[in-house]
């Protein structure tokens, strides 16, 4: 009986520790915390001029994110949605810096970031993993 007496608190402690660790590790930076992305809303937003730069995503990254105006801009079409989310969150929160993107991302909400990521991820891609390239 005495072992049972300690088993419950021990289990509780385990559960609490597990939850606490998870929350601290992911925090606000995790794309996992963003709402579900909506492709149609993302497309509309991708074509809308941003207030900070006067440019839309498509103005620089090209149609469907696949025809960058300049070689310094990445292709976005078909890229993993959660990597795009991560990049935009980092720009917005000042953890990644780029003269244009830092400004462009400043005004984006979590929902808008999720929508943009869903849209670009849904497009045809010119990208690939390195699986089988050697």
């Amino acid at each position, binding site marked *: 009986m005495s072992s049972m*007496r*300690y088993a419950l*608190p*021990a289990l*509780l*402690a*385990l559960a*609490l*520790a*597990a939850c*606490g*660790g998870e929350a601290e*590790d*992911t*925090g606000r*930076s*995790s*794309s*996992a915390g963003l709402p579900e992305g909506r492709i149609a809303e993302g497309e509309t937003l991708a074509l809308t001029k941003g207030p900070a730069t006067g440019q839309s995503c498509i103005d620089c990254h090209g149609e469907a994110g696949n025809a*960058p105006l300049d*070689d*310094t*801009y*990445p*292709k976005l079409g*078909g*890229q*993993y949605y*959660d*990597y795009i*989310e*991560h990049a935009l969150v980092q720009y917005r929160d000042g*953890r*990644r*810096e780029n003269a244009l993107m830092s400004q462009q991302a400043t005004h984006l909400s979590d929902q808008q970031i999720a929508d943009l990521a869903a849209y670009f991820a849904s497009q045809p*891609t*010119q*990208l*690939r*993993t*390195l*699986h089988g*390239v*050697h």
Partner: protein
Amino acid sequence: MTRPLTIAASLAAVMALASLPHSALAQDATQSPETVATETAAPAPAAPASAAPAALVGNADNGRVLTYTCLGCHGIVGYRNVYPTYHVPMIGGQSAVYLTTALTEYRRGTRKHPTMQVQAQGFSDQDIADIAAFLSELKP
């Protein structure tokens, strides 16, 4: 009645400590500054002052050899970064200029990701040009 609670509290503390090594797996700059500082400070960077070094002609054949080290993450379809969790990006097919900028920024520490910063420390300007040449020529 207070005793089991005390035990629970100390257990919670122990478990919290035990969960700390997870942080050591941190793969992103959002983690503790010490982690990043240690990683960036490691080898003496041969970093140039400018973000984009003078355009070198990349050798894709050499880039093919150099990119074997990338496969552990970028060569696995669906592979995820952890803490935070997101898919490691597809980089095959990006432009050579974009890839060169990314690797140069990681090497300088102006773009942050512990693993990528360490990887980039080992690359010369020519290595980066070679890697960029090989990766940019890949097709889906």
